[in-house]
């Protein structure tokens, strides 16, 4: 299910979580592949140790891996950040250094400062790329909080 769209345009929209007044939907924006993602505790009060699950078949080697996140509300970006996930000398995670074609599944916490999501609808663009800036994964997510 992670590879090859069954015809049609673009990848289907998945639900990462829907509970406690929060709904997170996402769609892969990588033309080559879809991926699986879910958030364990769905709440507008984001805990410091948020547990996520993430599965993808790698289209590139990831000796190094970086993620760029852009938050957009009402069409204007208001938050951007870039974070190194895998660095060359000091592989922090067990999936660092994995190979193109390898399955990669992560279930675990995501460190963050812990915050409450204000009411509203947000668009989040998440892009992951490797040391050659080749795209590893890409997602357009919608966060609806009410």
């Amino acid at each position, binding site marked *: 299910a992670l590879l090859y769209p069954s015809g049609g345009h673009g990848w289907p929209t998945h639900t990462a979580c829907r509970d406690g007044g929060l709904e997170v939907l996402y769609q892969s924006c990588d033309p080559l592949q879809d991926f699986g993602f879910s958030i364990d505790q769905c709440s507008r009060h984001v805990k410091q140790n948020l547990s996520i699950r993430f599965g993808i078949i790698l*289209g590139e080697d990831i000796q190094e891996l970086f993620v760029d996140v852009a938050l957009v509300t009402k069409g204007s970006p208001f938050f951007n950040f870039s974070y190194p996930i895998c660095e060359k000398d*000091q592989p922090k*995670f067990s999936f660092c250094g*994995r*190979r193109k074609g390898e399955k990669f599944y992560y279930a675990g916490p995501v460190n963050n400062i812990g915050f409450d999501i204000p009411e509203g609808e947000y668009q989040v663009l998440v892009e992951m790329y490797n040391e050659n800036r080749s795209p590893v994964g890409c997602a357009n997510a919608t966060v609806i909080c009410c």
Partner: protein
Amino acid sequence: MISSSCLARTLIPAMAFLSCLRPESWDPCTEVVPNITYQCMEVNLYNIPENLPSSTENLDLSFNFLRHLGSHNFSKFPELRVLDLSRCGIQVIEDDTYQGLNQLSTLILTGNPVQHLDLRTFSGLSSLQKLVAVEINLNSLEDLPIGHLKTLKELNVAHNFIHSFKLPEYFCNLSNLEYMDLSNNQIHNIYHKDLQVLYQIPFHNLSLDLSLNKIDFIEPGAFKDIKLQKLVLRSNFDSMDVMKTCIQSLAGLEVYELVLGEFKNERQLNEFDKSALEGLCNLTIENFRIAFFDEFSLDDIGVFHCLENVSAVSLLNLYVNHLERIPKEFRWQSLELIDCDLEQFPTLTLSSLKRFIFTANEVSNTFGELDLQSLEFLDLSKNGLSFRSCCSSRDFGTVRLKHLDLSFNEVISMSSNFVDMEQLEHLDFQYSTLKRANAFSVFLSLTKLRYLDLSYTNTHVTFDGFFHGLFSLEVLKMPGNSFQGNSLPNILTNLGNLTFLDLSNCQLETIDPTALNPLGKLQVLNMSYNKLLSLDLFPYENLSSLQVVDVSFNRIVTLQIQERYHLPNKLTLLNVTQNDFACACEHQTSLQWIKDQRQLLVDVEQMLCATPAGMKGLPVLSFRNTTCQMSKTIISVSVLMVIMVSLVVVLVYKFYFHLMLLAGCKRYGRGECTYDAFVIYSSHDEDWVRNELVKNLEEGVPPFRLCLHYRDFIPGVAISANIIQEGFHKSRKVIVVVSKNFIQSRWCIFEYEIAQTWQFLSTCSGIIFVILQKVEKSLLRQQVELYRLLNRNTYLEWEDNALGQHIFWRRLRKALLAGKPQNPEGTPDADMQPEATSAM
């Protein structure tokens, strides 16, 4: 028949030749490097593509549906060096599939559910150096038929189901093996017999990665007397006891680098027991690295007592606190502390330490002091440290420092100019805030410094001696700073050895023309993201070593091209993109230069015009010189036209009446004259005209008909029109009655001027001058033309005596008779009387 077969014989090879010439289609693959590299990733291939050239060296067939690789499948590509077959659903690889690939050095089989590997599966492959067999359902190293791959250097069998660490017999042949990745398998136990082959043939350079195998047991002495380059054991043990036992069982191993620890997402050990590392006393280790152990505490320094003799220690992402307690006797030469949860900056006293890396620890306090006499390399970046006084050898307790990195910290206040730090070769301050750097020549004593990074240090250079002393400097990075007056002054005079200069993002508007002159060895110059309005290439002529110049993202409107100007010989890249080029004819030379130097210019096709409005957004290359030539012609023609039109207008204005006369002449033609003469006179002389002239000429014999304004001008018509139409057009002759009054009358002078033109146009001498009274010469001179004419022409003079008057009338009649038609209309009897009848 014969001729047609001949024709066919000629045509067929010709068409074959032409078909060779047409551009090849590599569909569905993509050509990356012609004849060498082809990309066929995820293009729904069920077979090996046939249409690729046999010279192909790099072939990516990943993410297709090849499923079954047959014998000699790749024989068409004997030059292959890299073959990527990742995730192609390959279940069967037949014997001799890779036969003939004698050049192949890398074979990637990641993510294929291979069911069976035969002895001859990897036959051929006589040059294979790297085999990636990650996630191929491999159960055992025994199953891998690679014993003949003597050139193999790297074997990656991570993420499989290998349950035994037993290195098969065939490893004896793999004497070149340097790296084996067995991580993420099912190896639980390691026995002495598993490593037998390592006793038979020593692998001096072998690195082993066993991470992510849940190891329960290592037979004591299994690694005894074995030499390894590197052994990685991360996230292997699920309890401290197992870890402790296993490390003890490594006794006798000689390893250059041992890596222990966990991964951030694969932590199994909840607490750290200092005794776990006791076993390390029985190992010979050169470099020791430990990473991501939860609750790892250095409170009890006994943890490291087995590591007294290692030369390098690296601690990554640990909870380390009391580092001060490391005994002085330790022989560590290198210590790395990265992302460790330290409360404050440690005061270390290790006399052997040459290299100290202390980064990303975010201690957020003020730098204390170090007492490291042998220290040569110090990296204190990314700590949020403040330096109250920087820098002298006392701060670091060493006079041997060659490399100092204080980047990504807080405020660094410069208080001394690197006293006793003359050995420094590399100095990095980037993204820390430098204070008081302008007060004195901070770098004066750093005569050996080769690398200086001051990027984004909020430095505003106002002091001319800022760079004094940096005689050996080769690399200077200054982006994100500023200079006084946003102008680069001539302050780089000492930097004759500089090869790399980055002045990007410095808000520079101008550059002193001589500022770059001292940089005779400069190779790379970056002045992008400034506010330069023009680029004068002249200063670069002296920089004979210059290879790369980047002035992109400025406000350059035009390049100033000097005559007799030559670019440095070695210049290979010039980036002038993202500027405000004016694509106007006035910058034609500059734009032509851009076209001429397109080989040199980066992304010349993407260079766009900013002005004029008509060219905005269009490529600079689309500017045509011919438009300038066109417009030049247009401009000169229009100017000429304007001049001519104005000239005509002026002339028409001046000679308006003359022209009317000319038009009238054409209209009326010859022989239509009503009057014999038009009399021009001043109204003050009217008495004489009425009483003498009219009486004598009109009533005399022959009678002449005179045109007189008081009598013959048509009322209601403009005087000027009457003068021309009635006076001149209808009269044969003009009698000008010259007197003092005449000269003073403007109408008379006007009439006289018209008369002159009329005389000129009618090409006969029609003006008869009558001097009524002597006019003073001075008055006459006011009318230059008249004066000249009177001097040259014969004129009649009115006399007071009777004889004189008689002669006067005779001469006048004669003059009026000249040119009079024989029988003109309306004067039937006019010519009947000869001059003899003129007696009065």
